[in-house]
């Protein structure tokens, strides 16, 4: 099943307030899902007989923010974060890319992490991927069983893959750059 057909199927099941944009022009076509319904959609695409997406290939975050003024002219995205889900079905051998768009900060208050539901109850591997995304991209996954930093030390400040992240001057007496 291709992404366009899956989009139709999802629109049938949910409404257009939950299933948002369909992009078929990208090399890997993707479907945008609203942040508060990702858990339902994830459960549906895994359990529905026509879809059977039993394998989560990858889950990662992307920070859409361009700080370089030269590059910013060509950059036509509003600043936001995205969580990207790459799915595959072993039995039906098809792919799907789901996206959730989030504000960079919850309620635009700097320092408050945006929230999205955890899908670790659907695919067990999402547990570690979400911990990494939380650690490096600063996205809070609600109802995650164990949302701790995974690559950085637990007392690290900031989230490294954010575009406006500044490297700390010092960490436990070790000088930075």
């Amino acid at each position, binding site marked *: 099943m291709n992404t366009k057909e899956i989009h139709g199927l999802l629109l049938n099941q949910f409404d257009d307030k939950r299933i948002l944009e369909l992009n078929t022009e990208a090399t890997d076509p993707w479907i945008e899902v609203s942040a508060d319904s990702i858990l339902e959609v994830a459960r549906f695409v895994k359990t529905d007989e026509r879809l059977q997406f039993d394998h989560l290939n990858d889950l990662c975050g992307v920070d859409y923010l361009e700080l370089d003024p030269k590059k910013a002219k060509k950059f036509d995205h509003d600043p936001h974060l995205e969580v990207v889900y790459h799915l595959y079905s072993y039995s039906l051998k098809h792919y799907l890319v789901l996206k959730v768009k989030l504000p960079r900060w919850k309620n635009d208050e700097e320092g408050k992490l945006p929230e999205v539901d955890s899908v670790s109850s659907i695919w067990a591997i999402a*547990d570690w991927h979400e911990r990494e995304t939380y650690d490096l991209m600063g996205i809070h996954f609600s109802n995650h069983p164990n949302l701790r930093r995974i690559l950085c030390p637990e007392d690290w400040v900031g989230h490294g893959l954010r575009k406006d992240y500044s490297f700390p001057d010092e960490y436990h007496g070790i000088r930075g750059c």
Partner: protein
Amino acid sequence: MSTQIEDPRIIEFDVRTDEMLINMGPQHPSTHGVLRLLLRTDGEIVNEVTPHIGYLHRCAEKIGENLSAPQWVPYTDRMDYLAAMNMNLGWALAVEKLLKMEVPEKAMTVRVIIGELGRIASHLVGMGAYGLDLGSFSPFLYAFREREIILDLFEEVCGARLTYSYFTIGGATHDLPDKIQIPPGLASLTGRKPDTVMSWMDTVIVFLDWLEERIKEYHILLTRNSIFIKRTAALGVLSREMAIDSGCTGPVLRGSGVDHDLRRDGESIYTRMYEGYEFDIPVAPFADAPSEVVLGDNWCRFYVRMLEVVQAIRLVRQGIEKYPTAEGTHRVPHKLTAKLPVDECYLETEAPRGQMGFYVVGTGNAEPLRVRAKSSCFCNLSITGPLSVGCMIADIPAIVGSLDIVMGEIDR
């Protein structure tokens, strides 16, 4: 107070053994790098295992946002440093998919030959180190003797022995060499004079002929060794459902009975490379397995790797046959500062340790907005906890070793 002690149940409750927390790693040799496992043990029995990772985190993804695609190739080398060729290939293919670039037949043939030799080298380390984890020293020495020859052959191809940066966007940096002096290890092992000059292809054939005979010895040393079977069979059993749910890939997945290999089932940009090649995909259960073996245990994962070496040898031989008649060049020119389109794509390739995925988001500049390396070992390691519950402390290296992890790839 005295009334409580008189209650026989409470006295019995009080004499239980204390649980003990044990730190294994990050400098423990059988954790394959800098993995730290926190064990909660009751005597010899392990009740809980928590892996702690990140000791080798080098911010590769962040660095990639400030470099152009060809400039990031050396960083992929340093992820899975035991199979750097396959990492280069994964990244090069992901960017080629984004650029909709097609590489010539010759470049694809070179990629199959070198990529599969890389797989052999990687599985040899996996096999040798696994023997070492279980207390058998000699397979490790044999495996490194063989790997040394592959590294010598790679050195003739690209000048490096560990971090090759050989495959790049559009093909490979050099064509395969013509005449070389035979690697000293191979000369002494096959009874040739050390100053023999042969073509690179012939040297590979001599090496493969010799290696095929050695594989039988590895089976005697490890696979069919009764001590080895006792240490691996029916231990760390990973069910098919759990393997899929936990995102396991590569030999770990096939060891649990899922018939999936991206060289056959992957996206067309990758499977095109393997068109016209004949090879089998070893999947558990095996008819010739010892009776103690259970589907999805340590032994199955190990045996998948051993059989994959044989298939890789077949692929290299077919590649060498195709190479003289392959059309085109070894490389399509690609500028160092070429701009990436406003697009994004994700591609997984079958690296020796599992499916290595690269995700690129381009915004019209040479530097991507985001690069993401999805590590196969990262997913494979995540099942250590559930697999190890209830086993003995000495079985922990056997379980972690059977997953064949490389920390450079997990921590990136």
